[in-house]
């Protein structure tokens, strides 16, 4: 267990965050401790993605990143897109060989992840032939293979069905010590996260442990300003 006095994992102090030159969040102060599972909620344009980006940039080498636009390489297989998260762990020549013909060890490692995200069947098809949900799972796979302690995801399960979403969220929470997710499904947020941060009108409108909140407490975040 960490000592109580230890530094918080993420620490934003009176920050102003911009998106495309416009201030989205102002005077923002926020700390996140190791081991927390945080859900960011709020209407679209509230600044969730901007905040996630700022958090990732604080610890770029410790964060497994799962952005809203997955940025997959469409003409390559799901296998290669997932493996992209592990390029740094291997030599360049191994990576090059694996690009030409999947290496046995890489195949085993990626297959195991594909099994856990239910993508085994499509593993060797190119991403441009996959559905939106399958692409999103590929993107999660790319984050999982990094085997990092922190997971930051921007609506990581928005395009998959409810049943699968719950399985994936469970998996993400199991495999990472700290999780920060932007979410629009309030029930999922309450179910999987320990802390809810609500954004509205360029500021934090709500920040509380999820066991003290109910779905109705969050409804106000989505009212028109």
């Amino acid at each position, binding site marked *: 267990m960490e000592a109580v006095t230890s530094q918080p994992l993420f620490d934003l102090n009176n920050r102003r965050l911009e998106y495309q030159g416009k201030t989205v969040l102002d005077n923002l102060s926020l700390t996140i401790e190791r081991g927390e599972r945080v859900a960011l909620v709020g209407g679209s344009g509230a600044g969730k993605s901007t905040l996630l980006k700022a958090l990732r940039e604080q610890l770029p080498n410790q964060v497994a990143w799962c952005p809203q636009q997955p940025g997959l390489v469409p003409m390559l297989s799901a296998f290669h897109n997932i493996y992209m998260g592990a390029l740094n762990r291997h030599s360049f020549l191994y990576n090059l060989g694996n690009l030409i013909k999947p290496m046995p060890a890489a195949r085993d490692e990626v297959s195991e992840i594909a099994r856990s995200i239910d993508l085994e069947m499509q593993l*060797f098809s190119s991403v441009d032939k996959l559905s939106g949900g399958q692409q999103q799972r590929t993107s999660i796979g790319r984050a999982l293979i990094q085997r990092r302690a922190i997971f930051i995801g921007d609506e990581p399960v928005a395009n998959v069905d409810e049943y699968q979403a719950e399985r994936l969220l469970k998996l993400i929470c199991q495999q990472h010590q700290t999780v920060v997710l932007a979410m629009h499904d309030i029930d999922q947020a309450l179910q999987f996260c320990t802390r809810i941060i609500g954004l509205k009108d360029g500021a934090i409108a709500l920040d509380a442990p999820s066991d003290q909140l109910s779905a109705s407490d969050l409804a106000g975040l989505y009212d028109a300003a």
Partner: protein
Amino acid sequence: MLLNTGSNSLDTSASALRKTSFWFAAIALLCLLCADLDISTVDPWHELSLMAAGALSPSVWSWPTLLSSLANTFSFALQGVAVAAIGGFILALGYGYSVVRGFCAFIRSIHELFWALLFIQITGLSSLTGLLAIAIPYAGTLAKIYGELFEEVDLAPARNSPAAKQPLTHFFYTVLPMAWRPMVTYTSYRFECAIRSSAILGFVGLPTLGFHLETALGEGHYSEAAAYFYALLLLIGTLRFWLQKRLLPIYLLAVFYYLPPHAQISWDLVARFITEDIVPAPLRGEALFTASTFSEFANWFSLLWQQQIWPGLINTMVLGQISLVFTGLLALLLFPLNSPLFFRRWGRTAGDGLLILLRTLPEYLLAFLGLLILGPSMLPAILALGIHNAAIIAHLVGRYSEELSLRGDANRGLNLYFYEVLPRIYRQFLAFLFYRWEVILRETAILGILGISTLGFYIDSAFEEFRFDRAFILILASALLNIGVDHFARHIRLRLHLKTTPESL
């Protein structure tokens, strides 16, 4: 999907491109086995060091000669492109007809140097020859580009618009205005090419920069050659500063005043050239359709085929294939120089500057330099074609990569290149390369004039021996080869769904 169960083989959009690339590379490797790549000079480094010394100490021996050859180079290019633009525009209006398309394909499949060699026989080393040698093939190219642009922007037939009932009004009010900008952009790019062509026409005797370059290089006066060389670079490099649209009419008047297209034409000679000189020897003055004429012609042709056409074709294709693949590899190596994903700001400006410089060097001149250094073999030709064409493609692929947006946690360095960028640009890269294929092959044929035994070698020898009938047949053979490759490239582009709209190529 279910059928895919358990399949471990890759089924990706990239695999079709990979397969095509593999076969192209494999054929190029086979070609390498039968290509002559020897370095036959005793000490290539010595010649290279002399050239480098010359490049560092350019000296102008005669300013009037330099300036007049510079003016001639510019004049031929501008006149040629102006006439080609008008001719190409008129041809483009009929581009829907396959006859017109075929005609355009034919005139552009013959290189400007071959046109020059033909016209020199009729109009001599005159200003008219220079103009026609550029205007004819360029008209064929511009007609294709304009025609395809018109087709692309012409939505009236699809929309069944009332304008379609008044074709001319429709054309001038909707099609032309929409196609105008890309037409201007492309034509101005072709003008840069025309300056290179014009300079190169000097190698067959016209009074442009190439004439003095060849003389100076041939005699080992590298300082003098360097001066002409820098003049050419300066001319092309500064075009965008002084060749402005407003001033164009003035420049046009100036070049036609300075170098009026003119030739002393003896019509008897013209008539003889067409009705006699280029007619295959066994058919001259003989009664056609008799058994003896036919068998003599058959003998004549089969001898020509065995000794010149076939070896010329094979060597042209071997050299063309190796050069194509080498160009592709070099372009993939070089494009990061002009890509914001790999170099930012000054780095990229410098990188793209290098690509533009390499693009500015005419491949014919590069090959000539290569021959002086390495001796006659396919090696200098491959290097010259590769460097020039790869720089063009790398510049375009680099610019295309601007459109890619990478994730915040994208990989770096070689991993970024091979996993994230190369697959994304590869389709566009192949489209550019296959566009360039026809051009590479045309240039491959022409490099024969320098002594590499492609079709150009036999064509040039035939001209030297005044065997115009042979030259004519050989030029036809090279034209057919180019048309065939153009068709094949188009077929591959369609099959691989490569973008087929014209770029600055």
